[in-house]
């Protein structure tokens, strides 16, 4: 995989965590992949061994979404959901986000922005946390507590993963 496609984490504001990633596809497809349940449940799965039995999306301002993941072997479930605050197809979605068993206090606000250029789409996902401490810790401890080794492993992983692998 090209380095340009590597995931980037940044912190422009004191309560924000921003993920940036580019995709070799037009924006409409990336938008569809985030908003059509039959597409969302094919990639938004987390670690191997999890599936997404519940994926409900009511894509309109004030509409709700609900995701539930389940571990294929032991049946463990993990759920989250929220409400859409802004929907501008195919470029912008703002929604609240709350895990059933949240590790951070309060609700987070997620903003998805898609920008297309020469057939490539850059995705920017901004999470805005209610607790600054949680956000700070996510990034700063990541940078300062010697995680270089895991970055290297990640880089190896990226280098060894063939593009266009189908599930």
């Amino acid at each position, binding site marked *: 995989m090209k380095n340009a496609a590597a995931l980037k984490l940044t912190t422009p504001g004191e309560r924000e965590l921003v993920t940036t990633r580019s995709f070799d596809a037009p924006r409409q497809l990336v938008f569809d992949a985030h908003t059509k349940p039959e597409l969302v449940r094919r990639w938004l799965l987390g670690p191997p061994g999890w599936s997404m039995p519940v994926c409900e999306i009511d894509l309109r301002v004030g509409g709700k979404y609900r995701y539930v993941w389940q571990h294929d072997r032991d049946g463990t479930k993990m759920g989250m959901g929220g409400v859409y605050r802004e929907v501008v197809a195919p470029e912008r979605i703002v929604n609240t986000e709350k895990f059933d068993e949240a590790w951070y206090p309060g609700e987070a606000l997620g903003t998805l922005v898609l920008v297309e250029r020469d057939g490539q789409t850059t995705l920017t996902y901004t999470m805005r946390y209610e607790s600054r401490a949680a956000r700070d810790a996510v990034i700063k401890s990541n940078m300062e*507590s010697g995680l270089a080794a895991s970055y290297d492993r990640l880089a190896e992983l990226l280098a060894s993963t063939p593009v266009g692998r189908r599930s």
Partner: protein
Amino acid sequence: MQATHRLDTVFAALADPTRRAILTRLASGEASVTELAEPFAMSQPAISKHLKVLERAGLVSRGRDAQRRPRRLEPKRLREATRWLERYRRLWEGNYRRLDALLHELKTKPQAPGDHR
């Protein structure tokens, strides 16, 4: 739920630059409160307050020497927290690699009949 709460305490403790500096110092060996206060322009009570937060989060413990009462790093708890972060990155890299594959498929597959876009 309890594990989640504990992680929260760890993240809150890690959010402060002085406390991260204290942990960095302790990573090279145990130290007394006096020794820890030296490099910082801070009073011992102020350092003690930070240490209390770190102790509550399980990131720092007290050594045996009753007089110096040296503090030392508890790497296990720190590892738990960083493991979470590592999982976060891995999780999203995994998700986006799957999304790459899906997008590739959508691009090359002819539109299904009835899909009017």
